[in-house]
């Protein structure tokens, strides 16, 4: 390397941390930070307007003000009065919790089996499960619907839940994570006289809890916001999930935007609270699934 080149690199080192994750008060970083922050504000602006409008009187919703002049809880009283939203909320919770528990258990059991056991047909089973990832839900909806009609599952929790009791994505994810569990641990447990079920449940599972929580978050969020299947399989308002209920409610209200916004806010607030509480785990979960998936 020539002397001049060396000098140049010295100079660039002196100029500091273009690539280092360090704080500096150079004008460029200040501008960068300010623009990112403004972008962030822009990103949450729609949600701020959603919440703000839900506290406004009808005559106030048309102005751009964020803090209402006379905040009111009237919209919430009106929307919640007949109890429909509580029913829908409960339905969504039941459906999302059951499918989450089922998926987490079965996906990890299958992932574990496909990772740690040796048997004929293992690769075939794995490829078969993985191949279902290529099949879009929409393709299965018509046969599922006829199945639900034939078995009398229309307008039932089971009808809403059955397609989502296991996920191929979760199976794949858990298989990846069980790779990191050393076989020696399982062997030691086997020598201690634990049976295979106990080994999976009490030795392997505790070692992959971060992956389990990531999977749980994804399955829960997916089922909580699921729309097209619950829309098809239910026609009794008592069994609507929150998104389906919100659609019918909003269509009913037609131009009462402050009421529609209140309904939408009621559907949004729970996930916002969940996010603010579990932020770290959720972000970590997204990163893990993104990198392994």
């Amino acid at each position: 390397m020539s002397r001049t080149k060396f000098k140049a690199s010295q100079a660039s080192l002196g100029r500091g941390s273009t690539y280092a994750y360090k704080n500096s008060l150079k004008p460029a970083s200040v501008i960068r930070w300010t623009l990112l922050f403004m972008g962030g504000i822009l990103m949450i602006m729609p949600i701020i307007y959603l919440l703000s409008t839900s506290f406004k009187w009808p005559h106030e919703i048309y102005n751009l003000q964020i803090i209402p002049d006379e905040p009111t809880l009237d919209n919430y009283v009106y929307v919640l009065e007949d109890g429909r939203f509580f029913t829908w909320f409960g339905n969504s919770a039941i459906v999302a919790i059951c499918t989450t528990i089922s998926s987490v258990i079965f996906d990890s059991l299958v992932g574990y089996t496909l990772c740690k056991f040796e048997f004929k047909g293992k690769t075939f089973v794995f490829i078969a499960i993985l191949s279902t990832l290529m099949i879009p839900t929409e393709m299965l909806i018509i046969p599922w619907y006829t199945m639900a009609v034939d078995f009398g599952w229309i307008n039932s929790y089971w009808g809403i839940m059955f397609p989502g009791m296991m996920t191929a994505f979760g199976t794949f994810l858990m298989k990846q994570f069980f790779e990191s569990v050393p076989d020696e641990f399982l062997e030691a447990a086997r020598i201690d006289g634990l049976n295979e079920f106990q080994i999976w449940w009490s030795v392997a599972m505790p070692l992959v809890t971060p992956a389990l929580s990531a999977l749980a978050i994804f399955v829960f969020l997916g089922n909580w916001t699921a729309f097209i299947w619950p829309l098809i399989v239910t026609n009794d308002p008592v069994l609507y999930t929150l998104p389906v209920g919100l659609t019918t409610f909003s269509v009913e209200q037609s131009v009462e935007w402050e009421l529609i916004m209140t309904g939408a806010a009621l559907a949004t607030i729970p996930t916002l609270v969940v996010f603010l509480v579990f932020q770290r785990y959720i972000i970590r979960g997204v990163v893990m699934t993104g990198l392994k998936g």
Partner: protein
Amino acid sequence: MNWYRKLSIKQKQVVWAWTFLALPVLFYVVIRFYPTFGSVLLSFQDWNLLGSKTWIGLENYEKLVADPVFWKVFNNTFIYLLLGTPVSLLISFIIAYHLDKVSFLHATIRAMYFIPFMTSAVAMAWLWRWFYQPVPVGLFNNFLASIGISQLPFLKSTFSALPSVLAPAIWAGLGFQIIIFMAGLRAIPQSYYEAAQIDGVGPWTVLREITIPLLKPTLVFLVVFSSIGFLRIFDQVFNMTTNDPGGPLNSTKPLVLMIYDTAFNAFDMGYAAAQTVVLFTILLLVSLLQLYVMRERT
């Protein structure tokens, strides 16, 4: 349980493995594979949900090819894809690239970008639908009016309706893409950057020669993931156009909405099944094509 004791350790493992897999295998066969073949089979049949199924061969597909609505919908679906994927990936990459270099209030800013991802598409569709209303109702037009710009039709015109429906979908997905991009950026070894710094290479060259090539796996994942999402768009369109689903004049109608309409409003199940087969084929081709293209450009 006498027979079990006689088995070797290896054989016991096989017994356990299939015990664990029994219920899941049943699930995948009954809830995934059987319906898939059911749909393909149904696409060659005529069925109105109540009467009996009659075999009609390729008639559903012939009807599809001759249906101008299908071609409109086919077109729309690809516009959602070809507009949504590049725009959302470009924005999220720019944000991730810069957010990665920021440490002051990093987590707070990240959370602001991520929050829309946590919302339900239905709620957000109604929120944006309100934004798009004409003066004096809608927020956007009120804002435009307040700075003296004439109104935009948003959902009311065949030209602007599709981008208007797409915007909240892009907005809600950005947070996820940003997080994945940042994870990808973090996975690039710091030593590459240090080497570049010692050689005095400019930031654009670093971006082009180091960051983007090393980000390829992340990019492939996000391109495939978001393309599939945009090809299957439904919730937003359904909720933003309830008075005229897929309107105005089918200008926002994606394939999934056409499937829904054909199956559950017109009860033309065979025809709907043929449409799902088309959707499946598109998704398959797009995934394969993108994997191929990304592999070529090392």
